[in-house]
């Protein structure tokens, strides 16, 4: 049976990852699809998975009492969705909703965490890759906060 390993290997996030690590991760992977409008994660709910988006677009939203759901970022093909599975208490910090039909590979967070505990080299490798993503998103948020296109810029 064909596994998801070639798909994971082809994803930029797993570029140059050792084959043995890739095999371990593949054991935690499954194909998923979300219909347009479907919620993938809800703020405060358990963050059981992260996703490699293969097709489609999802929005990250913050619910504001006065303004409703505010989209703060969109994520699309080739990108990683979710890091909350990695950081206790493993809960989504935002609402995540599919904007269009979205196909992704879901990685089971609990499964991967267990493998990382057993194999710290894998854990360190994943941590390095996720840290990059978290830093990119932090930087992007900071630039957004600057409101650089406002008249004060």
């Amino acid at each position, binding site marked *: 049976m064909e596994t998801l390993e070639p798909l994971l290997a082809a994803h930029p996030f797993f570029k140059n990852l050792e084959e043995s690590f890739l095999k371990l991760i593949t054991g935690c992977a499954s194909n998923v699809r979300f219909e347009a409008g479907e919620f993938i994660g809800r703020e405060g709910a358990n963050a059981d998975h992260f996703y490699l988006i293969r097709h489609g677009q999802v929005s990250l939203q913050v619910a504001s009492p006065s303004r409703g759901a505010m*989209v*703060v*970022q969109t994520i*699309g093909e080739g*990108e990683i969705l979710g890091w909350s599975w990695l950081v206790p208490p493993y809960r989504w910090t935002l609402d995540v909703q599919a904007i269009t039909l979205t196909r992704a590979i879901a990685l089971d967070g609990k499964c991967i965490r267990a493998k990382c505990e057993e194999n710290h080299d894998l854990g360190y490798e994943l941590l390095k890759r996720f840290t990059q993503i978290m830093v990119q998103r932090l*930087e992007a948020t900071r*630039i957004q906060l600057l*409101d*650089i*296109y406002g008249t004060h810029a």
Partner: protein
Amino acid sequence: MAPTLDEQMHISGSAEAMLPRAYAIRRVKRETADTFTMEFEPVDGASELTFAAGQFNMLYVFGVGEVPISISGNPANPQTLVHTTRVVGTVTKALGELKRGDRVGIRGAYGRGWPVAAATGNDVVIVAGGIGLAPLRPVMYEMLAAREKFGKVVLLYGTRTPADILFRKELEEWRARFDLEVFITVDRGSPDWRGNVGVVTTLIPKAPFDPTNTLAMICGPEVMMRFTINALQKRGVPAEAIYVSMERNMKCAIGFCGHCQYGGAFICKDGPVFSYAQIQELFGKSEI
């Protein structure tokens, strides 16, 4: 006959360069809540004004003052001078209150523009932030007129909200072309916005271009250009292949007054377009 670019460069070094010529407003188009595009035609025998993509003019609202504004029209069509302006101060506010038939003084074109010819044979990545799309629009016109000369052409445009998107109709037309990649993102979405949300730099890692054979042109607020340069360099685009358009308060526009001095250079005369390699020691320093 209209002066050539070489002749204009000569003129810009003389006293004649300080004389505005009379132009009449032929058309005004509101782009967004705070930006508008004006088309001007020469009057009183003034000749048409040839220009290169990325150059700017000094626009004089009589009795109010002068402002430097980039040219947003097509260099191949110098009969119609086009400027897209954002209301930020007294002069731009007064300019925005003028209507069809009103006259302004225009002198230019000044400065060094985008290296469109140098991009021949390369992929081209254009990154525009906010009103920064206006000075890059002439580049798009030039490249589209000779599309076969370039590799992949990618336009990445970031703006504040969907309501702030400039040249909306044109962007849609460009997006529909098979020989262009156009990505638009906004910092803040609206309930009906189905496109990208996030800063323009987030588009760079996924944009389809070959970083070893790319020429990048960036225009927007300095902080946006700073982060864009980081993202391009992370993808492997060298400093010499990255061009930025700098903005300073230009007064004389011909390098005499020193208002726009930038290290050893004058933005008005040596810029506004610089290669990043040229200015990286100064770029981002707040005291410059």
